[in-house]
């Protein structure tokens, strides 16, 4: 079953076309990598899917809701973790969880129970009462991810979730993504770390607002006769008129 379907989606800012007529679909439970150089249009495309930006043209549905009309319903059905760190630094760990749980309508007692289980799992139980700003960046990112799927959404959108994080933490972060995927959550992730692309079930590579390639990492490497996703990406990005890399 397709949880994301997009047809001819376009976003223009003035005369600049950030996303140019893209079409793709994502299956339930998939880890879908959305790659591209800075400025290739991946964040813009993702924002349209989450109901943060209105498409200039084209149609699409997320979790069964139309992105042009039902953005409020989409918002209740998805999780989102932005590129910028988005937890409240002046709130404690449990207060952040409580806030988002409350916003998504998780019942209070259930939320309290899940909070303890989550912190246990993350090994953050002793930091429950700490302010988020006192946590190291890697921990915050892991916490932010956990908060974004706390209400058990069907799909989670991750916008460059591992930016600025050390390799060990990135590894752990991907383990968390796998776990979420196993529990049935579809993961839509943008990144520009090519090693991370290898972890995805399928990846699309955006160049200048268009989808230049879309397939599983193994097939893409075969098609381009490349050793790694990094090679594939370099070959595609070289065609970019905007410079890309």
């Amino acid at each position: 079953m397709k949880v994301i379907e997009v047809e001819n989606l376009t976003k223009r800012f003035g005369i600049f076309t950030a996303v140019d007529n893209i079409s793709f679909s994502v299956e339930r439970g998939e880890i879908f990598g959305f790659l591209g150089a800075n400025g290739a249009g991946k964040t813009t495309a993702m924002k349209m899917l989450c109901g943060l930006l209105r498409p200039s043209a084209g149609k699409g549905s997320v979790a069964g809701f139309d992105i042009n009309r039902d953005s409020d319903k989409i918002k209740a059905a998805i999780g989102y973790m932005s590129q910028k760190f988005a937890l409240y630094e002046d709130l404690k760990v449990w207060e952040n969880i409580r806030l988002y749980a409350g916003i998504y309508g998780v019942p209070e007692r259930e939320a309290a129970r899940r909070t303890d289980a989550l912190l246990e799992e993350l090994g953050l139980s002793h930091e429950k009462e700490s302010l988020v700003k006192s946590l190291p960046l890697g921990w915050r990112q892991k916490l932010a991810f956990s908060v974004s799927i706390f209400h058990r959404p069907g799909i989670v959108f991750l916008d460059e979730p591992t930016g600025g994080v050390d390799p060990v933490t990135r590894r752990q972060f991907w383990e968390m993504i796998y776990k979420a995927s196993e529990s049935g959550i579809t993961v839509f992730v943008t990144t520009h770390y090519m090693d991370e692309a290898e972890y995805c079930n399928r990846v699309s590579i955006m160049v200048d607002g268009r989808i230049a390639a879309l397939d599983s990492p193994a097939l893409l490497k075969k098609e381009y006769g490349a050793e790694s996703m990094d090679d594939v990406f370099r070959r595609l990005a070289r065609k970019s008129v905007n410079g890309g890399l």
Partner: protein
Amino acid sequence: MLKYLLEKEFKQFFRNKALPKMAVIMPFMAILIFPLVANFEIKNISLAVVDNDKSSTSRELIQKVAAGGYFSISEVASTYTHALRSVELDKSDIIMEIPAHLERDLQREGSSEILISANAVSATKGGLGSAYLAGIIGDFNKEINGNISTVVADSFTITPRFWYNPRLLYTYFMVPALMVMVLAMVCGFLPALNIVGEKESGTIEQINVTPVTRLSFILSKLLPYWIIGFVVLTISFFAAWIAYGLTPAGNLGTIYLFAALFVLAFSGFGLVISNYATTLQQAMFMMFFFVLTFIFMSGLYTPVANMPRWAQNLSIISPLKYIIIVLRQVYLKGSTFTELLTPFWMLTAFAIFFNGWAVLSYRKKS
């Protein structure tokens, strides 16, 4: 949903190092300190005297001026030019030149002319100083006429009182208006800056992808500051009562009603700013620009009736003007609601206008 958002706002407010303290200190600063320093009462005016007459009358006049407490004789100059030099050197503020033959003219013709010239760089000091001086001279004039007509003391009754007690009246005039300023800061500035702060830190983007409606988001920003605003206003009432024995002559309920309306209007204005600003710097600058305009147009310092016609027309756009009118009227004159219908409708119009604009200009998606 709103419950959780409000909980968050209050936690953040009270966890902030500066805000709760500021909220308590500000009303005390505004009520106890500002009226004393922001005061138009003119004291210690340095007076240069040019006495061309050197008669007993002129000496008496100079003595009277010096004894009034407002003027200190900084210079007794032989010519006007010398006196002017002393003004140029900033030693004197005002020159009083007594013409030659003052005494003779007064006795023979019953009139004479005294020249007052004032350094008007500080227009208030110059203007009020020369008005004080003219008043003293006027008093003196009456006394002399009394002497000349040799009428005895009992017809020498009370003259209309030029000298009000400027300090007392000015404080009473200022305090209600300063309460408005405090309210405007807490309920207009703080929520707007708070929202822009969330834009800057990126947390608003996270909220925007949640099912939080724009109404609950905005209410979660406004309600806490409305509550804090009313606490602060109440502290101001107590501060004014303790410090100056100033209590409202009218109904306290009327004040709260109008304050609520003003707060609604002014926080709507803050929201409009927060919708257009993307950084705190922009928001601060826009806020200051408009708030300063509102203040100067509001009659806080200078009565609106004193302004030129075009400025009076412009002053209708200042919501501060109406609430200041209300607080002064209720506090000092004891006006009731029915006498305050104009401010009521104007504030209602502002509330609708700003909040309508805020809702229209707020976009969860672009």
